């Protein structure tokens, strides 16, 4: 593994019943926000799922730092229609501390899920991942449905990322990637 890489993806071809993406190679270092860009259907989400073990790796290797703890924020998380769980109960599932939650999310922590909008739920899940103790956070289109305040909060957290942590950020919004990523990989070219 190169240097202090948290994750190394080497010539990976991934998909489900048939390959969808690859071969792709990159590594993610501590303190880095690595952007994954590409057109719709290029296989960016499939690549993230290959890292978490939810899609199939046809060839190539994925190496992780020993004991790496990671968290995956899903694109379009499903908001259950009737569950009365409070925002706090979701936020703390992965170990995020509600007392240190970003201001933008605090009013949502005491609210039951059935009163969340899709954008609020997306923000809750995104910040639950980012504020969890995971060293590597995989983010899949985190800007979807977010309003200006939420985007600002997300930008602030990415900007202040602790040096021992890293983010692998998938987005089709090139401006957002360029603003936050120390390096970018184009998938599907």
């Amino acid at each position, binding site marked *: 593994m190169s240097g202090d890489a948290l994750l190394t993806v080497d010539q990976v071809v991934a998909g489900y019943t048939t390959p969808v993406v690859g071969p792709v190679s990159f590594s993610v270092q501590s303190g880095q926000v690595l952007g994954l860009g590409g057109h719709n259907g290029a296989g960016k989400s499939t690549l993230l799922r290959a890292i978490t*073990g939810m899609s199939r790796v046809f060839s190539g290797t994925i190496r992780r730092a020993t004991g790496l703890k990671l968290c*995956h924020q899903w694109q379009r998380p499903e908001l*259950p229609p009737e569950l009365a769980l409070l925002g706090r*109960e979701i936020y703390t599932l992965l170990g995020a501390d509600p007392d240190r939650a970003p201001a933008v999310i605090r009013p949502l922590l005491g609210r039951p899920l059935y009163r969340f909008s899709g954008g609020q739920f997306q923000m809750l899940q995104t910040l639950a*991942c980012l504020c969890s103790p995971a060293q590597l956070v995989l983010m899949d289109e985190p800007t979807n449905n977010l309003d200006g305040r939420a985007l600002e909060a997300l930008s602030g957290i990415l900007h202040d990322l602790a040096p021992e942590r890293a983010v692998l950020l998938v987005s089709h919004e090139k401006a957002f990637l360029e603003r936050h990523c120390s390096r970018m990989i184009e998938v599907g070219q």
Partner: protein
Amino acid sequence: MNDWLLFDAMFRIPFLTGLCLTAALCLVGALLRMRDEWLAALGLSQVAAAGAIAAAPLGLPGLVGAFGAAGLAVILRSSLPRVGNSHHALMILIGWSATLLIGAHIDHGQRIGDSLLRGQLYFAHAGHLAGAAGLLLTMILMLPWLSPRLLTARFFPDYHKANRIRVWPYQAVFALLVMTATVLGTISIGAFPAFAMLFVPSWVGFVLVDGWRQSLLATLAVGILAYVAAFVAAMLLDLPFGPVLTGALVLSAALRFVTAIRRRNAEISGDSLHTNYLAPAERPTRS
């Protein structure tokens, strides 16, 4: 039957068996609803009924047949790459048709099938009570370990796999609890009343209060109140217990509609439960 029978020692064991099963079925039902798998409960209860009736011509106890069939269904279900309500619906149809077809070809088949679909709580004995109490105790002991794992899997589906945390222990424990609760419920109170107990209390309880623990408690309260009311009503009015229980649970759904109307009215008036959750800046103001 008269009201003195309510206090007869003969009915204590059936009452306590049903009470333990009610609490266990309510908790299992809440977890199934949280996972959006509540239809699986009806599928399993129908398959368990088919297994129990199939055991008769083989000379096996019904409980063994019910566990065997439900266990097989659980194994088949967990071997599928993706499980949805279509699979659960198929289980219901297979269980229902098998119960009636097998019942039509064995001695007393119709009577056994009928008792499995409607329930036979009054015939519960000490063995049933021990099983039901053991299930409830296991459920209570396992819940603090099981619940956060199931919640994490629901909201962050690949978190455990991504972090190489073994998923089979909690998945196996949950499958065993669902199977045991469904089989004991089907044998003791009947396939449809057991399904009603798995389905209705959480459907009602989840809209009465906010918060996960509070939802579980509300689910338990709805289920236990309906059970006690049904037990008393069935004895006093000399009615079959299973349909009375199912009816009592269906009546409890009125609470859900009343709560929904209250919430809607509160939102319209701007005085709502809803606004209590908002930060001061977000709260609507009256002009």
